[in-house]
């Protein structure tokens, strides 16, 4: 299955957002996520099923004005 993770194309066989983070080495406790522009709360990572062409944004705290 092809998905987009922070703008990059990723081929993966995993089923859920949680498994994707595990596969990519992302610590789910210090990021926030959105799929196709919609916020996905952390508690839903393990039940959120990925699908073809899903656009996933995984954001971290960063400097800001």
């Amino acid at each position, binding site marked *: 299955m092809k998905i987009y993770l*922070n*703008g990059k194309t990723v081929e993966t066989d995993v089923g859920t957002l949680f498994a994707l983070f595990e596969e990519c080495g*992302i610590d789910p406790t*210090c*990021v*926030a*996520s*959105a799929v196709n*522009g*919609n*916020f996905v*709360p*952390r508690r839903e990572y393990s039940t959120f099923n990925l699908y073809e062409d899903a656009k996933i*944004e*995984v*954001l*971290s*705290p*960063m*400097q*800001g*004005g």
Partner: protein
Amino acid sequence: MFYDFNPGSRFLLGTACYPSPELLSKAIAASQTDIITVSLRREGAGGGVFRQLLEEVNKKFLPNTAGCFTVKEAVTTAHMAQEVFNTNWIKLEVIGHADTLQPDPFALVEAARILCREGFSVFPYTTDDLIVGEKLLEVGCQVLMPWGAPIGSGQGLRNKEALKSMRAYFPKTPLIIDAGLGAPSQAMEAMEMGFDGVLLNTAIAKAKDPIKMAQAFGEAIVAGRKAYHAGLMEKRDMAEASTPAYGLAELI
């Protein structure tokens, strides 16, 4: 009082564009701010260092929605920020144009309506337009943040008369000048005019010595507030001698 928080300092400091995390950390300390603004971005180099810095500085976080151009982007970003920073505070920016970074007031009010209804404490980055300010209060904002000048421009208070009107029009609403300030004198003037706080970033981050500049702004903000409370004298068109005329010698 900004929502439920009574800050010791009226200085809100941005954390972007500093030459190094060490300088940022020292500038935060020198400014004596209680509130720092932060953002959410895709993880890049140095992300871990910044997270550690946030843990160490022990300040209240005000996450922003910088870079959002639509209601949906801003609302989604607010939700994400709420989870990551564990706060209901959100500095709501809905930008109307990439060059001017001027707020889109229509989208701003709409996003504020949604977020206030959901229980966010919204700090809207707005213009000095009084009716937009009224609408923002109507939908639940308890603070307004009018711009001094376009973000990052360092121009100071570009429309002082409008800002004075805004101060008079919203006597009880906390008003924070957000963006566009370049010098401590400009921050001091805002405080002298009775504004409740000043939020800035670039003027400090881009100074030759950010630590010293953070301190200078901090002191200016304190002095400006003190002057406002002390009551500035009225301006006059003509001179008026301060030394008494009574008792003046005849020397001719």
